[in-house]
């Protein structure tokens, strides 16, 4: 276990290092730049641009910039936004908090819907309950989240005027982004829960448990579900990764000031310090999420835990 953890951690550091180099180069070698319309006005003169680039050190070779950047990071200086001069530490506090609120709400909503429905569909297999739940799930997988967002906004904001169409951070403003962010993963988790339940309902131990005279709900919830959740847990790691990806789109649509919104905006505006910091942050988050899912998988599965 210890060597596994060490290997896993080393792997994470390696990926972060490679990603940081790739992202740094990719961003800076891309056409346009903060001086080419991202931050400065496209109409500003050549001298102003050169002076601006010199002040930021953008006239130096990229690898020099990279090591200077590493030096800053090492001393705890994350830099400031080129667009408005806000320190990145400050952006990190507000945006990371907003993203966590949105992401955790979405995850909670999604599991609260997906797991009970998945269990119900499996237990009531081939009845209308099952068909309705699975029909909903396959529809949920087919609806692109940005379009769902648009439809929800059209009905609940434009037509009915019940919910604000965008912004942060009151509970009513959280409802639609969280629902949209939860939608796709809910469908996948529900299908996974159902098929995993069906698989374990066929296990020999189910008959043995019934032969002990256990109440049916105890057989289903305590035993079958417990076994069926093992693959669902390992899917959670992937789902957290997907959630990060979808958050880029959902936060942008609802102008929810989270990390995703900030990242898309900073990439479009070529706000290098912000873009590179937050993309690395998201990569770190995804790696950690997969790592935690592996650990949780091991904890849920005694056969792996001891082996």
């Amino acid at each position: 276990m210890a060597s596994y953890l060490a290997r896993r951690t080393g792997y994470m550091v390696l990926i972060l290092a490679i990603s940081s180099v790739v992202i740094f180069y990719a961003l800076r070698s891309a056409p346009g730049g903060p001086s080419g319309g991202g931050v400065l006005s496209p109409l500003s003169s050549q001298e102003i641009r050169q002076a601006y680039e010199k002040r930021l050190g953008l006239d130096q070779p990229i690898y020099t910039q990279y090591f200077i950047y590493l030096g800053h990071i090492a001393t705890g200086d994350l830099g400031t936004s080129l667009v408005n001069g806000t320190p990145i530490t400050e952006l990190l506090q507000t945006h990371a908090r907003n993203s966590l609120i949105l992401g955790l709400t979405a995850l909670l909503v999604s599991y609260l819907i997906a797991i009970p429905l998945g269990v119900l569909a499996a237990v009531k297999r081939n009845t209308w309950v099952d068909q309705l739940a699975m029909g909903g799930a396959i529809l949920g997988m087919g609806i692109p989240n940005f379009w769902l967002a648009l439809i929800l906004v059209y009905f609940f904001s434009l037509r009915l005027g019940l919910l604000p169409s965008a912004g942060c951070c009151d509970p009513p403003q959280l409802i639609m982004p969280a629902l949209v962010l939860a939608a796709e993963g809910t469908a996948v988790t529900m299908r996974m829960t159902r098929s995993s339940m069906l698989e374990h309902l066929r296990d020999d131990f189910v008959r043995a448990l019934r032969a002990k005279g256990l109440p049916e709900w105890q057989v289903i919830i305590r035993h079958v579900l417990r076994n069926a959740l093992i693959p669902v847990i390992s899917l959670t790691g992937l789902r957290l990764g997907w959630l990060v990806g979808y958050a880029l789109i959902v936060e942008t649509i609802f102008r929810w000031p989270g990390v995703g919104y900030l990242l898309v905006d900073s990439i479009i505006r070529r706000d290098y310090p912000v873009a590179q910091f937050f993309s690395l942050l998201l990569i770190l988050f995804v790696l950690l999420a997969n790592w935690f899912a592996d650990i949780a998988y091991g904890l849920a599965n005694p056969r792996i835990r001891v082996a």
Partner: protein
Amino acid sequence: MSAEVALEVKGLHTTLFLREGRVDVVRDVSFQLNDGETLALVGESGCGKTLTALSVIRLLPDPPARITAGSVVIDGNDITGAPESTMRSLRGDTVSMVFQEPLTSLDPVFTIGDQIEEAITAHRKVNRREAREMAVEILKEVQIPSPRQRLDDYPHQMSGGMRQRVMIAMALVLDPKVLIADEPTTALDVTIQAQILELIRAEQERRQLAVLLITHNLAVVSQVADRVAVMYAGEIVEEASASEIFANPRHPYTQGLLSSIPSAAGDSKHLYTIPGRVPDPRVLPPACLFAPRCPYVISRCWHEHPGLEASNGHLLRCWNPQPFIALKAVEPEVDLSVATSE
């Protein structure tokens, strides 16, 4: 001492409802099992012996299987058509079951302690500590070394024999009247098999258990059974005391089974095998189900279904019983030439 009837099955019919149609897998099966007695239900796989047992304890895979006729009385309770709640309170308490494969019959993500305790708390109002003490006691009884430590083991950490002891402990912890053992030794090593059978026999004597033993293995039967019912294609074809069955088998199928045991045939080089195979339940033979494989078949066997007739406590379903002479194996060369000429 007159023994009490622990389990009585009368005219049991179990049917599979498949897309292709109805298939009767258990037909008109009746038997009686007394306290402290072991009845072995013997037959090839697919003969309906496991489905008979599952019908008794009402754990048939539904769909597709359902009981279509017959009555079952366990320990004086007529459970024919009883609601699931009644069945649940009987299972594990009055009637328990031990399965073939102990590894897959235990939930892999719970410790064996948890699994024994929940069998107790499903029927008795006891707290966790009391349940745990009962679990330790029963593990001790089935001769599991250092039982208190083993409670925290997961099934995969134990050997096959130990797991089957755990299954037996779990089945016996509430002191049931009837124990159904479905091929309890088939998945185990030969050396372990004898120990498990010995354990079942010891427990039976101590508790006056009625044991319904389901097996395809006649060696197992000879070790523990008091009476034997031979099943073929969903029917009981012969039933008698174990000694009678081994000394004087009358049904050609039973004779065939006995002839295919090395010791009974006396000639280990040429083991007898019953020709043909178990009939496909979708196209059963028209009258006697064993007719296509029977060495003594007569015309009547193709036209009239034989009933189960009793003589001196020996039940037999056959039109043309012959005295038992160990059937001889067909020479392989002959067998081959027959196969190629077809």
